[in-house]
């Protein structure tokens, strides 16, 4: 069984007067170690899909199975457990805790997942190249540094699925490349990495590119021009 399985899922937002179909009968599966980029214009349902996989939201129809667990059968507590031990998030706007230092934010990832490995927050922070910024608070870090802390926090959980919502959206080109390298390295470590972006360039470094339009998958496969290295990207 695949690590992530979406079976015929639909997500409908009913605002009273208007009904919006964010996802429409989407079916897909993602294996361990896959680096998947979900592409599509704004409003096509990319983030909704990410939220469903991350157990932050529930589908209107269909089933989402994560690590063999059908999320539709889960209660509040079991969904929390999935988020704690199976998926990790990297947000476009970082969402770091302003009251915690860089290292403490990463430590939070360790604490929350109950990760007892000898790998410390300082080690994880060093992995993202921020060992000299460990005592800095988020507001004392640049955007790229903040995003790297956010990734380190997600990595600290050691969860098998890494979900990243526009991780380079707020970053300059060079910083964006650093972040992408980090994400690629996670897939190489057998994590399933799912990156949502509207940036077509990013798709070139993926193992697999899923294109969404109006809530439906219009294509699913390797990059058209073949997989490239991060350093070859230009945007």
């Amino acid at each position, binding site marked *: 069984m695949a690590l992530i399985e979406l079976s015929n899922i639909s997500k409908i937002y009913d605002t009273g007067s208007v009904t919006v179909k964010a996802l429409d009968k989407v079916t897909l599966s993602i294996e361990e170690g896959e680096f998947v980029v979900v592409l599509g214009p704004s409003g096509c349902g990319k*983030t*909704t899909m990410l*939220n469903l996989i*991350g157990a*932050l*939201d529930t589908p209107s129809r269909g089933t989402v199975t994560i690590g063999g667990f059908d999320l539709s059968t889960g209660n*509040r*507590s079991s969904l*929390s*457990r*999935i*988020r*704690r*031990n199976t998926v*990790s*998030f990297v*947000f*476009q*706007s*970082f*969402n770091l*805790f*302003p*009251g*915690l230092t860089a290292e*403490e*934010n990463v*430590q*939070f*990832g360790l*604490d*929350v*997942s109950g990760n007892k490995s000898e790998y410390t927050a300082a080690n994880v922070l060093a992995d993202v190249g921020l060992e000299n910024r460990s*005592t800095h*608070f*988020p*507001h*004392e*870090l*640049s*955007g790229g*540094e*903040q995003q790297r802390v956010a990734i380190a926090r997600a990595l600290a*959980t050691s969860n098998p699925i890494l979900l990243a919502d526009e991780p380079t959206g*707020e970053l300059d080109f060079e910083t964006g490349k650093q972040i992408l390298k980090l994400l690629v390295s996670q897939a190489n470590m057998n994590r399933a990495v799912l990156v949502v972006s509207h940036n077509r360039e990013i798709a070139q470094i993926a193992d697999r590119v899923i294109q969404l339009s109006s809530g439906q998958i219009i294509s699913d496969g390797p990059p058209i021009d073949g997989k490239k290295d991060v350093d070859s990207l230009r945007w």
Partner: protein
Amino acid sequence: MSYRALWVKWILRDLRSRWIQVILISFVIAIGTGTYSGLSSTTSWRLKSNDASFSKTNMHDFKVYSQTGNLFQEGKIREVLAPLVKNGLITGIEERLSLPTQIKAEGINGAIIAPGLLVGIDKSKGAPQIDKLHLTEGDWGNYDTGSKIDYAVLDHTFAETNGIPNSSIIELPGNKKIKVSGTGLTPQHFIPINDSGLGFGGVFAIVYMPLEKVQHIRNQEGKTSESLITISDPENPENLKTELKLLLQQSFPNYGIGIEGKKEDRVYKLLYEGADADQKFYHVIGIAILLGAVFAAFNLTVRVVQSQRREIGIGMAMGASLLSLAARPIILGINISILGTIFGIFVGKLINGAMRNVLIQELPLPIWLTPFEPKYFLWVGIGGFLAPIIATLVPVIFGLNIQPVEAIRTGHLAPIRKGLSPLLSRLPLPGNTFWQMPFRNLLRTPRRTFLTMLGIAGVIGVMTSVLGMVDSFTLTLDKATSESSIKESPRIEVVFNSFQPVDAAIFTYLKDKQGVSKIQPVIQFAGTAKSKDANNSDIKINLLTTIIDFQNTMWTPTLVSGKYPEEHNEILISSAAAKSLEVTSGDQVLVNHPIITVQGSPGFLETQFTISGIHPHPFRAYSYMVPSQTKKSGMYGLAGGVWIQTDQSADLDNIQTDLYSIAGVSSVRESGINDRAMKEELKGQMDILKIVQFIVLFLALLIAFNTASINMDDRAREHATIMAFGLPVSKIMLMSIIESATLGLLASIAGLGIGFLLLDYFINTVFASALPEIGMYLAVSTATYATTIILGVFAVGIAPIFAIRKLTKADIPSSLRILE
């Protein structure tokens, strides 16, 4: 849609999304303004009601009496003062016979034997014209039926407190049975007061009867004890007072003529000074609550408006006018102001209602005027109205004074924090990140934490002071009880109608009486004392001096300093008296005390005494001298009463009843009677404190809830991130509770400090002037410390639970995308 319509719609949306916060912040203000105006109104009510009550009952302008206790022949004073009546300076004279007594009655809780005053009133004109009797129930009794029953009007407070019904039978000494025909009040006894100067509501009985009946019952035919006088120019009584004194002293040279003006009357003073003390007390309580509430409302409003900071920036970037940008938050503030004002009037009226009930219950004046007092609401209402508007203006002005780009920036580009924040943020904390986060949140915004803490601390401070007052009252009562009581069995104090030789038959009779184990003859008299130090010589206090043998085995006062008196010119005074006179052991005081001259006539003498020691009884008037002093005052070998200690197995009620029927006995009472009176006196204060206690607790909860609710909004994104990482709502709630409880703990500690300062002011300044005869002990019990800390921590700590709905209903994906 027009530009203006858009803004109106936007403003309405703001209000709709924040209506709970708007209402709750309005309530915080309303409690502050309402409490202040509600409490402050009582002073005005008391003054108005005092004026109306004294006017309605036509209170005397002067009272003429004998300081030595001599009785006057009826009509004699009238005769002496006839020229002044004739020339119109005096408009009325009425004579009375007021004598100490004891009454026995059946109350709602069984038989009562209480000391009191039997007052004979001149009814020659059908009813008294001066110091009129205000009947609260019944009438003077029907004497026309030829019935041999005598009627009396009983003091309203005594009848009400003890549940003595109209038409019941009461008994005076000598088995004299009298029917209660009504209940009422006269101005000299609106608050029944005994020799110790305390208001004795439920334990001191005033019995009003026609003058001739009292003269007959007490075998004082044709005698009066005082004359009440009204004059034509009550505003300028001093000249006439001097003239009266000269005239009366010539006619009654051995009487020690006393002329007491209306404003010197103890009840009159107590009622007006009480209103003045109330004003100080309520003013401080009201101000403290008001400041706490307004401060909290200000703080809460600032926080609500700060959340619009980025929107203001965006508006500025898009070129919106400053006025339109400021309009949204200001209208939010105005809404809070308007609702706060309206709610404040309701809260004020509610508190008025509660205070009205307590006052009418505790001070039964003939007339109570308790209108809503807009003037007390006006100023605080304006303050309460302006606070939220200013609170909205502050962040708006700051918001408008920065570059739009700064206001828009979020995350890593947001303005750098200044002040203590960077320093406190780096404080090393133990534990994992979950448990650090609540403290980090408090530390990274020190100003906000401090201001929120201060608002709650102010309210907790008031609560601490209120609880401390209850503690102080309790300690004072305990001191009084432990000082008065004898461990083995109660002491009965018997007072005679007149001095008896210590070898009189009555002492042998009492000593041999069944159930009596010991007796101790005593002399007790009232006097005054002032410091010999010229700097303090204008401070004069009442004394109730007991002459006892300090070698007696029945009871002696305890010492807090010095020693018992040994010489005739030594006196033991209370610590309250020492404090009032600013003296200590070894200092000199001048005591004005009664004497019996060699000719046998009574008089007063000022003698210098050395303070041998100080005792702890809270009654300031209690003082003690040795029997050898009586040689100097002409009372040697005499006793005005006797203390009786009973066997442990003796039936106290029976002994009291037996003693009561002995001829010559004026009163029989348990030694703790004054302590019970003090309890009654303090009960009224405690009732008011309970109202205040309820208000402050509610206010603390409201502030805490508002703070927690705003915190939840502020932290929505943080909480969503935590949830995205899989932490359950319960753990986030726990973290919020820890944060709030820590804030509560800090506020409680600060509140205890504020509370102690307030308490010190109330006890040593306000109560010292309101209840001068009671030396209040200041106390804050461990229970109060614990209650304050627990309530502060608990009430503030649990506040986030009330906002749990926000967490459980949180839309995590949406919250995660919030940029602010």
